């Protein structure tokens, strides 16, 4: 589907000569207005983040002199540096676990025939339909250690609340990622597997040495989506972090909203800090990003 878009887009934009007409001007006008509306809030955010407190109250579009100190203040005093590091650690721990579980499971569901494979997979797919509201409450009790005893350090007192595992372990497997990798792994020609088997390789070696190196694209997609959902997570971290120890950036920004009061410029600086990593990721992997979404139809 994505390839089709590209091919026809190229076919359409190449060849024909560009000519001005009333319709064309109208068309561009609409597209430009749409683009402006899309980015005005970003402009507003960045502009406000560089204003003085007085300027944020006035009817002003640009600061007289950019106050870069706002960022320093947000970073240091509002603990955004701590929240930022927390988010980085949480995201990368989750991604490591996610990659481990979903490559193994994706490989098994795609290439190994075992008893009950399709039934198990169907059950997994069905869980994607369940709204988060249903699973939220039991999961909260679970990480609080109310349901089953949880492994952990002695001073955690049997609970994962305010600890790293509660923010990472529940997201270390995703049906969506397994599904995506399964689709790709199943298409790998059997000749490769036969050749590897003759060389005496088992499934694990075949997976690591042959399958993974040729599956960079789907793994990238899994990592990008995993990064976004982990970085942007809000509701669950809000529940399980009552103290700032492991509070991620999004929850930090929210507590700042409730505490910062009228200091809009610091709030906007904080908002800019939270979105920068996602924007960098987006601009670096733009094509894969949009096409990944277009082909999988994922909605976050």
């Amino acid at each position, binding site marked *: 589907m994505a390839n089709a878009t590209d091919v026809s887009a190229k076919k359409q934009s190449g060849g024909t000569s560009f000519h001005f007409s009333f319709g064309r001007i109208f068309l561009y006008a609409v597209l430009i207005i749409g683009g402006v509306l899309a980015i005005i809030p970003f402009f507003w955010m960045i502009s406000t983040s560089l204003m003085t407190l007085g300027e944020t109250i006035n009817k002003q579009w640009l600061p007289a002199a950019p106050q870069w100190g706002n960022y320093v203040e947000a970073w240091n005093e509002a603990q955004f540096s701590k929240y930022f590091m927390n988010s980085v650690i949480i995201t990368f721990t989750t991604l490591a676990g996610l990659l481990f579980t979903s490559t*193994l499971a994706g490989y098994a569901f795609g290439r190994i025939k075992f008893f009950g494979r399709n039934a198990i997979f169907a059950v997994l797919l069905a869980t994607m339909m369940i*709204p988060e509201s249903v699973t939220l409450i039991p999961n909260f009790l679970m990480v609080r250690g109310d349901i089953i005893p949880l492994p952990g350090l002695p001073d955690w007192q049997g609970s994962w609340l305010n600890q790293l595992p509660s923010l990472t372990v529940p997201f270390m497997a995703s049906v969506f990622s397994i599904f995506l990798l399964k689709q790709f792994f199943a298409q790998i020609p059997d000749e490769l597997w036969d050749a590897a088997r003759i060389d005496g390789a088992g499934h694990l070696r075949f997976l690591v040495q042959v399958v993974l190196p040729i599956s960079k694209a789907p793994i990238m997609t899994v990592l990008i989506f995993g990064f976004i959902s982990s970085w942007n997570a809000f509701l669950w971290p809000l529940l399980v972090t009552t103290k700032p120890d492991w509070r991620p950036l999004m929850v930090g920004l929210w507590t700042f909203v409730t505490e910062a009061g009228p200091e809009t410029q610091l709030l906007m600086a904080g908002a800019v800090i939270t979105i920068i990593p996602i924007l960098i990721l987006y601009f670096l992997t733009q094509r894969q990003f949009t096409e990944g979404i277009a082909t999988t139809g994922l909605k976050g």
Partner: protein
Amino acid sequence: MAATTSTPETVYKKKRFRWLDIKEHLVGYLFILPAIVVISLFGLFPIGYAFYMSMHRWRVKQGDFIGFQNYTKALGDDYMGLLLFVGGFALLMVAYVIWTSGFKSLSKRKIVAGVVSLLVLAAGFYAISIGWGRVSEAGDHRFLDALPITFYYSLGTVPAEIAIALGLAYLLFQKIRGQEFFRMLYFLPYITPVVATAVVFRTIFSPRETSLANQAVGLIGMGPFKWLFEAKPFTEVFFGLENLEGFWAGPSMALVSIVFFGIWTYIGYNTVIFLAGLGSIPGDLYEAAEIDGAGGWQKFRHVTLPLLSPVTFYLALIAFIGTFKAFNHIFVMRVPSALGTVNTTSIAIFDTFYKMNQFGYAAAQAFILFVIILALTFAQNKIFGERVFYG
């Protein structure tokens, strides 16, 4: 794939090394084990446990078993009213079936079918309004009020975001310079963390006279409004209609502000999906339409729209269900002075759970939400799924 390549050789091998077969199964289970453990603990088990909780009085700690009392607390014990309400929706479906089947038949029957389906439709709406009145009388206000609010939110966001996205995608798909650039711009709101953008919209839609929203409406000589801080219905604030009451007064100004945010966020996503759908429409269909003398609008109406209908259906379904699950941005943009007029179902359930510590009751509400989502999926599949043209 693998199933088609069972050559005689592999069959022979399988017979000879039976234990290899078992090993194969075991390796399979071993590979899925880590993922299965995590998903079972945090995805499967909670479903059953949530149901178990919903059957108990459970405020922070587990209490007595009370059967379905949490459910009757939410929906009320006016079963006749409930029946009327649900039956009303069933009547709407029946009206739809009569309508479509009538149009497949002869012209005389069309009139009859039209009249009958209109009557059934009216009866359905009547039953819904009577039933709703009785249910909301008997049930829990805080939970039931969330349903019309969610409905407003759906009605405000879904059609607008799909229509605008379709328009933008169609324009982008013309011979456009900078197609990728525009696509990137439109997509930006969707990929940005929603908590951050919602925080920005909190200041844009703030009641301050100098806020961006008030500057914008000032251009057309309106306002200033209180936006997110305004609990009054928008019909009253915008048009001064004060005599509308209850449901017909429409969403509050605060919810309208959140609707703007929803549209702004999801246009880009829908545009990208529509672009992919447009790319899969074969170009010769347009050429054939041109030969038949179709103009720009006719090509859009008779080629693009029907062929895009699966995409549109998919997007509408996802967006509609999404409004029932919507949480983060509403939670962030909610202020106390909106007086709960923006509390959609997910927010109301979260409040029951987190603010009021009624765990069992919140679980029951979550299950009611789940049933509603299932019913909506089914109904939308039935109604739109049949009208969709799958190339």
